[in-house]
């Protein structure tokens, strides 16, 4: 293999990135459970769409 071939470091660099991505996904998935997204109040967030307080669109 030529001395300038960085194939393996590059592939492992990509694997490291995706492992970090996976680890963060696992952490935040469990964190979302702790934060109540799957509980009784898990549906409350969907009403935020209508709470944007935009003064340009207020009802007369």
């Amino acid at each position, binding site marked *: 293999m030529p001395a300038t*071939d*960085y*194939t*393996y*470091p*590059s*592939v492992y*660099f*990509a694997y490291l*990135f*995706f492992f*970090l*991505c*996976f680890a*963060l*996904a696992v952490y935040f*998935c469990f964190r*979302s459970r702790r*934060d*109540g*997204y*799957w509980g009784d*109040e*898990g*549906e*409350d*967030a*969907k*009403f*935020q*769409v*209508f*709470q*944007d*307080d*935009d*003064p*340009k*669109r*207020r*009802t*007369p």
Partner: protein
Amino acid sequence: MQPQFSKAEVTKVPEGALVHEDATAKWFLISSVAYFFIVGIIALIIAAKFVWPDLMGSMSWLTYGRLRPLHVNGMLFGWLLAADMGLAYYVIPRLCGVPLWSEKLGLATAALWNVIILGAVVTLMAGLNQGWEYAELPWYLDILVVVAWIMFGINVFMTVASRKHQAMYVTIWYTMGCILWTAFVYLTGNFATLFATGTNQANLNWMYVHNAVGLIFTPIGLGIAYYFIPRASNTPLHSHKLSMIGFWSLAFVYVWTGAHHMLHGPISQWLQTIAIAFSLMLLIPVWAVVYNLFATMKGQWHQLRESVPLKFLMSGVVFYLLTCFQGPMHSLRTVNAIVSKTDWIPGHAHMAVLGCFSFFAIAGTYFAMPKIMGKALHSQSLANWSYWMLMIGGLGFFTTLWLGGFWQGWQWNNVSIPFIDTVIALKPIWIVRFLSGIMMFTGIVFFAYNILATALGTHEEAAV
């Protein structure tokens, strides 16, 4: 029919009310719409070159090899990602109940993004190209993209950190996911590939290409759909929990599908099988999203008659379902043996990027720009026309390329047919492709004119 407000009522802000400046959103959207039009011209030239290969002679900077990457990068980064970023700048502060963390940083990001896109036009037409699908930009522009993305990420994350509501709506999840995933995906596709060789290099590139769609354009596009469908129909989302299932299943499944671009190629069979298995598992997040958005519209379908944004949004959802059914199916070895590398693939890719995610972005722009400017949309009629031109032209384009691709694949699998005969046989397909392209471009012109006239014109009619 929504109530009309006079100009005085519109500009009079109640005391203590939150005011969104929206300057960043406005400039991202205006520039992205302008690039949509400009790069649409390039797309039309490319489609014409399929029918008349000698068109524009031998001028090097107007050859197919230079214009095609310009079309791909211009549409992906100049139009779609810029429009998505503009809509994120509009949506995130509203969902968080606070102003954008820094409009100055946002405007600097918009300026830098324009430098990148203009740089891409010059370099790609000059033939300065890294030679990798979706990663054609030279390394110095790649670095600027990374800088701009960090600026975008800081602004979004700081806005989310200062949010009024503890619980985050699914659009915020998707936007933050997109920012983090893009960092991983873009660095891998544009830097790690440069230092790899052979099959590993190709495999990394295809992992990037597929994740560019699946982990960049999909999450931010779905985030936009999840915001604008309830907002435009004035109907709450069917289920926030189901949207979370869609988000997390996307997060865990999507990243491993890229190798299906190398089926029957010189990579390990186990890697091909893993890519196929994960491609099939994509049906889980797709169905979670599609069911949720369709259930949201239950009893509200009549609104599509009056609302152009809803027309674009719900058509986009249908195209999302179709494209995400096609994807897993042509990841199967037997189907892939026919359609791989044929015209089927651009038909599929255009349905994803134009039919689905661009439709979401167009809908968001039609909804947001009048609010941002405090004006009514320049022309509802023109907006309707833009929808039908894009819809009919798009359908003609997609279906023609699927049929042509299958035909092409069957011919390629017959070794007794000379290759040049398969090229000649596809000419009728490419004529329909060009005619469909004219219709789609007309839709783009109507959309771009309507938005730019709303944003920059002197039309002072009261806002809706």
